């Protein structure tokens, strides 16, 4: 009898040992990696990041390095590395719209710069730009949305009206106005990018704030929140231990989607000529070359690659966002 009991106990222990217990975090990761589109998105982003970060180190050419061609000798050389060769003024011309070969994988653009190298820098700028803008937007949105949701009443009322005001301001026309203003202020093109980041972050927080507020309002009604309140914990602990961690899924999903959409907005602005401009390379300014009908018609190598790159990056962020949303909460609304 005792023997059977001990065997039973043994079995129970073994059974418990064989049970795998997942934390909620692990469950999310498991669900995320089950989504094929999300993995594809993650793969694309990793590839693009490697391309944008490591690429410029390997590439023999610089971001705004201009190449020249000596027509009499047929020699192609860099204007910055071998300036002495420029002296032969009669025969030397900028090597524009050069063909694709082993030295220039995607040819050279209308300014005589290497397209492939500029593509790397363009991706880098676009990624960094959108990360910074997202951080600014999130900081503003989470703070204001959190305050509105947590305190309610008049504060909520004021912040929500602010949200509506910012929501109504059309962004691209605003940037058109801002860019004419930047000309009036005499802001240098090199500094323009920082201004753009700040303005873009500042005018896009309303969506995040609205979302976070809604989330905080729901969480406040939850039983565990009331239990926490009954336990008499401090406001600080309540916010940082309960409210923010529980609102995190929504915030992360929103951030990943916004990363993609800001890249799109930035390149649109650059395309319109009111965004990032020389000396920086940007995917938008690279595609802008299609405005010359010769390039649109004959030099596909100059504008198709940046376009595809842009599409891939935005698509990847959308896939990741979608995958994360499903992973965090399968029932969460799209």
């Amino acid at each position, binding site marked *: 009898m005792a023997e059977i009991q001990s065997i039973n106990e043994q079995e129970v222990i073994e059974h418990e040992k064989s049970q795998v217990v997942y934390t909620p975090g692990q469950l999310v990761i498991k669900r995320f990696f089950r989504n094929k589109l999300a993995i594809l998105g993650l793969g694309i982003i990793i590839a693009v990041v490697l391309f944008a970060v490591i690429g410029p180190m390997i590439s023999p050419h610089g971001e705004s390095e201009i190449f020249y061609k000596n027509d009499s000798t047929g020699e192609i050389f860099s204007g910055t590395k071998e300036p002495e060769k420029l002296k032969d003024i009669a025969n030397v011309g900028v090597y524009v719209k050069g063909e694709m070969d082993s030295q220039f994988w995607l040819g050279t653009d209308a300014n005589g710069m290497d397209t492939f190298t500029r593509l790397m820098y363009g991706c880098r700028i676009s990624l960094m730009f959108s990360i910074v803008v997202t951080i600014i937007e999130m900081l503003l949105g989470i703070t204001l949305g959190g305050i509105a949701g947590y305190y309610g009443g008049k504060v909520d009322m004021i912040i929500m*009206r602010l949200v*509506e*005001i910012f929501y109504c301001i*059309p962004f691209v*026309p605003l940037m*058109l106005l801002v860019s*004419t203003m930047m000309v009036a202020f005499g802001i240098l093109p090199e500094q323009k990018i920082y201004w753009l980041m700040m303005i873009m972050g500042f005018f896009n927080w309303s969506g995040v704030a609205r979302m976070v507020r809604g989330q905080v309002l729901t969480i406040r009604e939850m039983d565990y929140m009331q239990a926490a309140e009954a336990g008499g914990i401090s406001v600080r602990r309540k916010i940082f231990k309960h409210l923010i961690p529980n609102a995190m899924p929504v915030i992360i999903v929103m951030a990943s989607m916004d990363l993609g959409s800001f890249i799109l907005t930035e390149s649109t602005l650059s*395309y319109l000529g009111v965004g990032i401009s020389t000396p920086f390379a940007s995917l938008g300014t690279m595609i802008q070359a299609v405005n010359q009908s010769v390039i*649109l018609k004959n030099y596909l190598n100059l504008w198709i690659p940046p376009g595809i790159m842009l599409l891939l990056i935005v698509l990847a962020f959308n896939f990741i966002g979608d995958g994360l949303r499903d992973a965090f909460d399968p029932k969460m609304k799209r």
Partner: protein
Amino acid sequence: MRQYIIRRILISVLVLLGVSFLIYGMLRIMPSDFVDQLTAGNPKITSEQKEALKEAYGLNTGILEGYVNWLGDALHGDFGTSFTYRKPVTEVLFSSKLWVSFTLSAIAFVIELIIAIPLGIIAARKQYSKTDYAIVFCALAGLSLPSFFFAAVLRRVFSIGLGWLPLSGMVTAKQNFTGLAHIADMGMHFILPIVVFVILGVGSWLRYVRTNMLEVLNADYVRTARAKGLSEHKVIYKHAFRNTLIPIVTFIGGSIPGLFSGAIITESIFSIDGIGKAAIDAVHTNDIPFLMAYMMFLAVLTILGTLISDVLYAVVDPRVRYN
């Protein structure tokens, strides 16, 4: 109900005041003599116009006083004179340009709905199937497409490569078509822009229809309908789809004002004479009065959109009113 609508309208007015103050304030944080700076390189502008501009924006007064003056004029419909067109801004805004923009977006809008609603329903009915994945993938791809790049590809393929469609503009130059031929000619020019609108816009509708349909399909009354042995067709179209219509109708209602807003990028790429293109032209000529009025106009459209959708929601769904 009436009280709710009145309250919403009052809030909207408040928000509009805020928006206008922000837009006006932006103008005022510019360097004091910005009018001179902006107009320095523009021979089209006379010194009288400069003075009029300074006065219009109250640059010689304090910011609050200037705002009140500007607002007073704006309420009378006076947003200043456009530099480029030498006409009151409102006249430029509410001209044929607006209707060109509206026609384009309205046609695209209808096509989007025709595509998105059936496909969204199919995707929701076959959730996690290959069809569903394909539809979701296409929706996301459309949403991620940069419009200027997509437009360039279309122009390269269909206008330059195949030569089927005109490259840009609204009518063929030097061919003074009249009557039906004129309309057909314009139609040919509108095809590519409309394709751009539809492909880029259909994705969000698809997702919206699919999500709402999924939600309804999981509802108890759909299970009841199935349990009592109704045909699948009846369950989907009589019980499920009609309930999905609630959010869809409100969303459609809310989108209608936006049809007037014009598309800056698509219009300028295809050189279509709508207000979006007028806005980008205004940037090149530093036409500040036009840009300001355009922004206010868009803000009003946005507010109108949310107002319509909120009110429609309460009208269509009686449950909303009580809670």
